[in-house]
């Protein structure tokens, strides 16, 4: 596994995508076919079945490292990664043995059925023959989570260079539920599959957030406005009477949305529509939370389908009657789209994203203000004559989001971060006043600069009241403006509310804790 360990280390050591691709291509050159398959699987988020409970791993590592359990836990909080903590606690290995990645994966699979005594013996034996970094990678095989900043896309790019196969085709081959155990590299990548071309999506055109005033965009009659829906961007493809649904992450998600099944009969062959997949019920969009209950689920149950049915809110069309029409002006594409949606006549799964009319920018600004009423994030502004471009481009499409809601809150707990923020207090809990008592209502961990994080970290360390493992309660002194996109009632939270996308907007160094907002202020923001 030393070659795989070296790859992992190389990927870990650089933030430059070119170097990562280089490292991967080099690795693919060196590795055996079986190891390659496993590497691709691991970097795509697949993993061998978990064969050892992590609590055992902790206990065994502490035992061999001759330290008490509490000291292992203390170390773990500082390191921020279990696999790494174990590898560091361990004494230096006397002799290392080099075995393949596939060997160790099979080793772990075989271990699944062993009893605890045998597992312990085997795992400790394995640890003893590895160098620290290799041990760390081995532990990652057990605990999962190979996060080394390699996206699926990046891996596909490297694999494309290695195999000479187009990236899009590779992406398709890697979709779905393939099992690394039963795959032959040659057959998997080099056999023809006619579906690849059928399912091929177009790259999405992405908008930037508007950074100035909308009025700077000029004559409003040259612009089309629509709601900025808060769902999942999706591309629906019907070709050869087959349906494919792609998410913006270039993931094939057809099976996750069985509602769309009928579209292959309702839409003509050679249709590719761009839109937002939204949870939608009784004529209006539900909040993103509803959709979230469906994402990440392997099986979409009947209950989920009833509670959070989805529609495609269509706003663009890239292919009509088998022809790529991305170069037509937006309004012409829109005409075709409207005609198709009208003919399909299945409003319970396919709707058109309405145009928001306004005679001037003030009118539209007024509409934008009402966005939350529609569970939308603001308006989209699109130039009426714009073509459908590739990737994120400035100029023709803009996101015009509503301003977030804000509240001034007091930091009362801080927790150490993980990964690159390990050993720094970066995750905070905030509270507002309920009479003379501080009630926690949200956590937030983003929005500060590195410099500010260091300042807060120093404050936490100097102003700790109590320690609970990785968490410290701190003197309630620091005030932050917390921004969020939505607020809902919640019975699961002490405060009675749950926020959407909370983050630290500003550090209010000008405000003492006594001037932070109250629970009543927070309730006043709840939507009626």
């Amino acid at each position: 596994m030393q070659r795989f360990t070296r790859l992992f280390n190389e990927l870990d050591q650089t933030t430059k995508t070119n170097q990562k691709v280089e490292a991967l291509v080099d690795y693919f050159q060196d590795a055996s076919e079986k190891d390659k398959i496993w590497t691709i699987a691991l970097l795509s988020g697949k993993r061998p079945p978990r064969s050892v409970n992590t609590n055992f791993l902790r206990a065994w590592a502490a035992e061999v490292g001759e330290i008490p359990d509490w000291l292992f836990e203390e170390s773990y909080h500082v390191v921020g990664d279990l696999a790494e903590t174990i590898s560091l606690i361990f004494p230096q290995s006397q002799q290392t043995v080099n075995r393949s990645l596939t060997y160790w994966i099979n080793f772990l699979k075989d271990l699944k059925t062993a009893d605890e005594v045998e597992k312990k013996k085997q795992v400790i034996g394995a640890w003893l023959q590895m160098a620290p970094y290799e041990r760390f990678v081995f532990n990652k095989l057990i605990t999962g989570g190979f996060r080394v900043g390699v996206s699926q896309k990046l891996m596909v790019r490297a694999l494309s260079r290695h195999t000479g196969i187009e990236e899009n085709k590779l992406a398709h081959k890697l979709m779905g539920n393939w099992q690394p155990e039963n795959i032959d590299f040659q057959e998997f990548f080099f056999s023809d599959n006619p579906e690849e071309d059928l399912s091929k999506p177009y790259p999405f055109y992405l908008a930037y957030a508007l950074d100035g005033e909308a009025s700077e965009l000029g004559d409003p009659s040259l612009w089309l406005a629509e709601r900025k829906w808060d769902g999942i961007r999706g591309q629906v493809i019907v070709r050869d009477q087959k349906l494919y649904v792609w998410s913006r992450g270039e993931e094939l998600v057809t099976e996750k949305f069985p509602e769309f099944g009928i579209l292959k009969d309702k839409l003509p062959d050679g249709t590719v529509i761009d839109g937002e997949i939204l949870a939608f019920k009784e004529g209006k969009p539900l909040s993103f939370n509803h959709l979230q209950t469906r994402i990440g689920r392997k099986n979409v149950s009947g209950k989920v389908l009833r509670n959070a049915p989805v529609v495609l809110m269509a706003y663009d069309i890239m292919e009509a009657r088998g022809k790529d029409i991305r170069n037509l002006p937006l309004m012409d594409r829109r005409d075709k789209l409207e005609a198709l949606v009208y003919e399909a006549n299945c409003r319970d799964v396919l709707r058109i994203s309405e145009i928001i009319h306004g005679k001037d920018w003030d009118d539209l600004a007024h509409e934008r203000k009402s966005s939350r009423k529609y569970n939308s994030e603001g308006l989209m502004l699109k130039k009426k004559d714009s073509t459908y471009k590739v990737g994120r481009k400035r100029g023709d499409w803009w996101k015009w989001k509503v301003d977030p809601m804000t509240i001034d809150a007091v930091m009362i707990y801080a927790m150490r971060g993980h990964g690159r923020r390990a050993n720094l207090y970066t995750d905070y809990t905030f509270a507002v006043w309920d009479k003379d008592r501080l009630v926690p209502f949200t956590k937030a961990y983003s929005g500060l600069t590195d410099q500010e994080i260091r300042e807060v970290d120093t404050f936490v360390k100097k102003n700790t009241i109590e320690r609970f493992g990785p968490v410290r309660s701190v003197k309630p002194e620091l005030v932050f403006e917390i921004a969020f996109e939505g607020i809902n009632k919640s019975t699961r939270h002490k405060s009675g509310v749950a926020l959407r996308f909370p983050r630290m907007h500003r550090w209010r160094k000008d405000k003492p804790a006594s001037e932070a907002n109250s629970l009543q202020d927070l309730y006043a923001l709840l939507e009626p």
Partner: protein
Amino acid sequence: MPLLQFTDRGIYCKRAGIYIDPWKPVDKALITHGHADHARYGHGHYLCHHHSKPVLQLRLGTNIEIQTVTYHESINVNGVTISFHPAGHIIGSAQIRLEYKGCIWVVSGDYKIEDDGLSGAFEPVKCHYFITECTFGLPVYKWRPQKEVFDDINHWWQKNKEAGKTTVIIGYSLGKAQRIIQGLDTSIGPILTHGAVENINQALRNDGVSLNETIRVTADFNKNQLNGSIVVAPPSAAGTTWMKKFHPYSIGIASGWMGLRGARRRRSVDRGFVLSDHADWIGLNQAINESGAEYVIATHGYTNAFARWLNEKGIQAGVESTMFEGELSEINEGSGGKAVNDEVQN
């Protein structure tokens, strides 16, 4: 009353009327070593090892009232016998031993066990009370022999040279920088230094310390001089426009904190080398065992965990808070912050 007490000015010996590494101005200060959090400005009299003198004068001015001693030399103040012993942390660093009526205290200052060839070899001193740092007082911190780390650094330097890149290595300017300079393979190329590093080099050379040849990077520095060289710079230089001179370059940091992957990734440098001037977990435990101390006081670092560990092993231990940059030195990994940044020893 114990011989030493922790006061708001520093570690105080009432009997002798002296403070050790005080953080507020006092009349008489014993200084374990020249780092900014131990040797502060504004004391009436300074007493330190003679190798610390040039550094103190460079940093605090030549007009300070300063007296020096050699290792093992005894001074008697009002019945208290005081002596300095090698701590192996940086050049001139010392553990300070105080004895009164047969009761012995040792203040370790900062220390490391491995002999780096420059700072003197750490010497265990038998005592009853041992006041210890524990910057790296968790079992995840274990150092490899410096020879192996320098092999890695030299290999990396060689590779960069072959790729037509300059090599930049970051280490704090007093101690780490000189240790790196001595560990470099000068057959690969010339060693360039940041001004803050070179000022210390100069002061030490004037004092008779022999160091590898270095070239100061001055304002009129010409890119043509780079030529496969390595640049030794303090943490405060990372990310500044000063670095542009060396483009294209590969940058690495030499620090004990680099032992953790999270810290390495946070700094987003090309390489992190685990090289510390502090004792690792094994070193701390070894030093405490060899001191034979009955009572240990942990001052900075992972103090609570370390003291609990010692207590469970049957060594009485407590925690005292000081103004030494213990846990706080974690944050000083970053650029910016206080002016003493590049001297806070990590």
